[in-house]
């Protein structure tokens, strides 16, 4: 695609901290290259803001290559913007044209309070992982990789679930702010493997309990999460977690 430059109008959510009430601010940005990423466009804007003595816009980012899940922005009504299976750092400005007005908001969920501007607190996800997203292993030498036979299909399904980067787009896009896709990916990746079997029942019960405690909503199977997930995590994982949960709830041990 041919390179072009564009002038844009940005409407960005500005909020001082989690206790203050935020509002939208309008910023004109000029001479943005179609080859830039959305975050680089923000870098240009922030440089301009800083050099003119104004406050910059705070946003989360880290890897800038689509693997860490930090870059969380709700762009023009979509989690991570107009492209599907994509993160904001991998969203390129060629998705927009000259003269566009772009509205950028933080993830909206009671469980993800806004810390500043576009930055939200996603530690609720960490606490869900702490509640059961682990396996117990004996210390000592690492076991031989082929010591445990694993069905190729299970290995692949587990690997796909494990590709969740914890970005929270599923929660952001869900009308119920439900975290079921994230939690089910974390439950599935371990439930499918022999290493995950010892804590299988307590894991799903504890992680779901923590999820509810954090104030995420209930899943009503709209499947918006799957459509907006940058890693294409399947809602089949949610069904698997429901299965795991029912089984664990019915078993006498837990």
């Amino acid at each position: 695609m041919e390179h072009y430059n564009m002038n844009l109008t940005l409407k960005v959510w500005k909020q001082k901290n989690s206790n203050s009430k935020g509002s939208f601010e309008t910023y004109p940005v000029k001479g943005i290259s179609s080859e830039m990423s959305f975050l680089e466009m923000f870098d240009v804007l922030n440089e301009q803001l800083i050099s003119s003595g104004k406050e910059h816009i705070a946003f989360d980012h880290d890897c800038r290559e689509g693997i860490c899940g930090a870059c969380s922005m709700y762009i023009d009504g979509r989690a991570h913007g107009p492209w599907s299976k994509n993160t904001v750092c991998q969203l390129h400005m060629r998705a927009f044209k000259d003269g566009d007005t772009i509205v950028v908001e933080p993830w909206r969920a009671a469980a993800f309070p806004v810390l500043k501007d576009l930055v939200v607190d996603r530690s609720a996800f960490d606490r869900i992982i702490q509640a059961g997203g682990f396996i117990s292993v004996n210390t000592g030498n690492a076991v031989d990789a082929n010591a445990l036979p694993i069905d190729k299909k299970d290995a692949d399904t587990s690997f796909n679930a494990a590709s969740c980067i914890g970005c929270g787009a599923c929660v952001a896009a869900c009308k119920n702010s439900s975290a079921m896709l994230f939690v089910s990916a974390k439950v599935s990746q371990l439930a499918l493997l022999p290493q995950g079997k010892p804590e299988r029942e307590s894991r799903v019960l504890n992680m779901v309990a923590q999820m509810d405690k954090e104030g995420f909503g209930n899943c009503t199977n709209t499947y918006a999460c799957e459509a907006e997930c940058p890693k294409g995590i399947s809602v089949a994982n949610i069904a698997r977690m429901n299965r795991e949960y029912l089984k664990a709830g019915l078993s006498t041990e837990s």
Partner: protein
Amino acid sequence: MGLTGLFLISFLIIHVGVNSCIFLNDGGETFNAVAHFMSHNWILRFLEIGLFAALILHIVQGLVVWKQNSAARPVKYAVNAPGANSKWYSRSMGLLGTLLLFFLIIHVSKFFLDTKIALYADGGAHDASHNLYAEMKAEFQKWWVVVIYIIGVISLFWHLIHGFQSAFQTLGINHKRYTPLIKIIGIGYTVIVCLLFALMPVAFYAGWIN
């Protein structure tokens, strides 16, 4: 939600089946006979209590889900494009259910209560002469009753287009081969049941059956 929803779905099969007897166009003879059997069989009377329990439970679950889910996003998006990632009816189950509830209140107070009054008032003196078919026919001469029923059926249609497959996912059933099949059966079920239900008031109103 899944279990109660599926129970209500299975009830609707019986309900639409019995009511479809009116299409035999025999002056309601078959329909009245089946309806009489349904209201006098004690097993069915027992199931009827279960039906009301399931419906009430389903509504209570729906309200709880709705309340918790509204609380999960206190600040809404200024700009939102949910149509890009999900179907409108999957996001409108509460609204569709509420429309259904209003319809059901009207529906039950018309036909169900009249049948019960005939059964029990004055020691069942009106039971033998109670003609549900004639009552249906009379009700469906009024255009506004027909309109209310059509609105009810349309709400049911969209509620079930999402609800049927959704119930299976909730119960943990999602399978490469069977889920597409469940979706097709769900659409087939919904289209057939809703079409038959919608035809009943329309057929009486238009005089196709009498």
